[in-house]
């Protein structure tokens, strides 16, 4: 599973992209986040306030309930500020 981080989530985790094998029971974005928070203090800090974190699964906007599976591309980022 490919996990991407953008903007300050990239700064906090110190990672732009990582390939991970999450626990078998991490079948939703929410469960995946619970696992990612355990990977490092930087990860824990990045996910501290979930209300300012947006997520995309395979490049479509998703929510904490969205299912995830091996091979998916999961991206975490702040609310967008382009334009």
């Amino acid at each position, binding site marked *: 599973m490919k996990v*991407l981080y*953008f*903007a*300050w989530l990239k700064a906090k985790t110190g990672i732009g992209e990582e390939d991970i094998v999450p626990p078998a029971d991490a079948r939703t974005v929410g469960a995946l986040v619970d696992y990612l928070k355990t990977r490092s203090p930087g990860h824990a800090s990045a996910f501290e306030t979930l209300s300012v974190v947006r997520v*995309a699964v395979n*490049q*479509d*906007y998703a929510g904490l309930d969205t299912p995830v599976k091996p091979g998916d591309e999961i*991206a975490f*980022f*702040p*609310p*967008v*500020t*382009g*334009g």
Partner: protein
Amino acid sequence: MAVRVQREDFDPGAELDRFSAGKTSVGGVCLFVGLVRDYAGHDPASGAEVRAMTLEHYPGMTERQLESIEAEARRRWPLEDTLIIHRHGRLEPGERIVLVAASSAHRDAAFEACRFLIDWLKTKAPFWKVEHTPEGDAWVEAKDSDDEAAKRWQP
């Protein structure tokens, strides 16, 4: 109908000419260009000086989202053509960031669609700005006013 995400600058005049060239059924073209301001936030008096900004994006998803925004505009209005160009990378005050344009037989549709494109882009396209100020770098926070602007277009 086109979406371009690029580091390089673009030429609004050339883009505009391409819109109307040889199309005798276009009555009006509405175009919006967003530029880098030299101050942070809403108010020049209280905002930090912005010396430059860097735009990060999510290659792949950004294009997908812009194409979906463009397709939605074309579903909603009878448009002759649409165009979205958005830059990424480091930009200085006065530089162009974004161009959206819509052409139609009638000006109503051109204006509405153009406004829709920029409003939805601002809340849906995965770009993030970090401003470089004398006090250091700061990620720009999403604005409630942008969310409000986008809400007007909810079906």
